């Protein structure tokens, strides 16, 4: 499939931070891939024009599954092409708590979360416990988190399985409290120390945190997995604070848009290119695919996390 290849190529472009810096051989190879991608997108565009949908991802996946496949490696980094076909877990596996914990334990090792957890001076609980005045200090982020937690992976949203699994969690104080602790701790982790002030809570992260909580089964490991994804796996500046907010995601969107422009032979208007690239990078990239593609596919892709560190 073009997905992994396209995105591996995009990743190399994004790593150099400007579309023009894409190496010539990579560009030639990608031209053919994008050509095929464009044909798929054209069909999707025609359908989209007819639809009233207010859910772009749903629309895209219903009309053109391969377009969504194109996002398989949107958890970029220098990802090698993903194996085809991907081995997706069965629903029975996804519903099996022991199986999920074994996946989370493996992710802890391969993405560096276990090392972070062992070597950090501050524990998860240290980060999650707000110091006096902390609420005021992180007011905007905390208010957004508190508004987002109850509306994370809601039942009426795309994939019911996530909500089922969240409901089954037996964390103390309920999963909403665990989710809030994870995200508040993340804000403090990102805003303090040497990593200072570069990244912050971005709407969509709560989806990742919820999925990690479902797999890890406890807030502490879910937190360190999230830290590893945000600090080590996501491209630089992907979750950047203003000014230059979300710059990493915008750079990637720019790369996609560039490819559509230069290989799509004018079949896409500037607005359309902006939209398609936004879906692929921001809408699906920021939440690391959680609730954008079926849970089994999300997990199959997450299993390739080791390539990115």
């Amino acid at each position, binding site marked *: 499939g073009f997905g992994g290849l396209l995105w591996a190529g995009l990743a190399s472009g994004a790593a150099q931070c400007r579309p023009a810096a894409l190496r010539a051989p990579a560009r030639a190879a990608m031209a053919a891939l994008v050509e095929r991608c464009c044909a798929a997108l054209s069909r999707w565009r025609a359908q989209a024009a007819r639809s009233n949908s207010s859910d772009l991802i749903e629309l895209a996946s219903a009309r053109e599954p391969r377009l969504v496949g194109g996002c398989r490696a949107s958890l970029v980094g220098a990802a090698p092409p993903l194996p085809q076909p991907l081995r997706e877990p069965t629903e029975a596996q996804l519903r099996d708590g022991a199986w999920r914990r074994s996946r989370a334990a493996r992710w802890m090792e391969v993405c560096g979360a276990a090392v972070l957890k062992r070597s950090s001076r501050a524990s998860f609980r240290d980060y999650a416990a707000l110091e006096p005045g902390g609420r005021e200090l992180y007011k905007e982020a905390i208010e957004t988190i508190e508004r987002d937690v109850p509306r994370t992976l809601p039942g009426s949203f795309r994939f019911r399985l996530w909500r089922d699994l969240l409901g089954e969690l037996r964390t103390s104080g309920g999963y909403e409290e665990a989710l809030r602790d994870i995200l508040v701790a993340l804000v403090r982790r990102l805003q303090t120390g040497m990593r200072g002030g570069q990244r912050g809570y971005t709407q969509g992260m709560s989806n990742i945190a919820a999925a990690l909580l479902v797999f890890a089964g406890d807030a502490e490991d879910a937190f360190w997995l999230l830290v590893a994804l945000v600090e080590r796996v996501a491209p630089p500046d992907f979750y950047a604070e*203003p000014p230059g*907010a979300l710059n990493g995601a915008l750079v990637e969107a720019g790369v996609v848009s560039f490819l559509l422009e230069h290989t799509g032979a004018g079949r896409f208007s500037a607005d359309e290119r902006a939209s398609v690239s936004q879906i692929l990078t921001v809408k699906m990239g920021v939440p690391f695919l959680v609730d954008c593609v079926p849970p089994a596919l999300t997990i199959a892709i997450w299993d390739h996390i080791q390539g990115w560190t």
Partner: protein
Amino acid sequence: MASEKEKDQYDYLFKFIIIGDAGAGKSCLLHQFIENRYKKGSSHTIGVEFGSKIIHVGGRNIKLQIWDTAGQERYRSVTRSYYRGAAGALIVYDITNRDSYNHLVNWLQDARTLARADTSIITVGNKCDMKDKRAVTFLEASRCAQENDILFLETSALTGEGVEDVFIKVARVILNKIEDGLIDPNTMVSGTHTGSQRIGSDSGGEAMSSKTCSC
């Protein structure tokens, strides 16, 4: 299907954007307008969403192409490119949340600088069903809208109160501007997914015309 065909018959295509603070109810407002019902368990918007609907105003069929944006401040870097060419802008605040009202001026400035110079703007005080938690009075918001020369309505995306009126009111103002010759409909830039033929240059000019849409 016949209804499918009917659906695409329109005289004008207007691009709208919905902006405002996170949690003000922008997505629910759009959902209520398009589906005529409240979206229970709505998630926060990541980036931008899209919806469209044909309405009948002043004897015309007008297709609204509506872009619904994420409210978190950092997403402005993503959403700002969607303002371009918008004929109408809905700035939504939550009547139970004073901060969301206080930020109106910022959103207004964004709309005026990033959309068209002649964008028709409406302030929408949402969640007007939650009267006991009201933090912004109707009178205050109404005065503020007058001072800034923009429209104002209160809505409830939950009950549907006022929701359709918002879209119709803005569309009527735009239609009046067209009929008074203040806006040349052919200069209107649409967003994505119009399916209409391209005219003009890379600046993204697309024809906004009656029934020429190729979709």
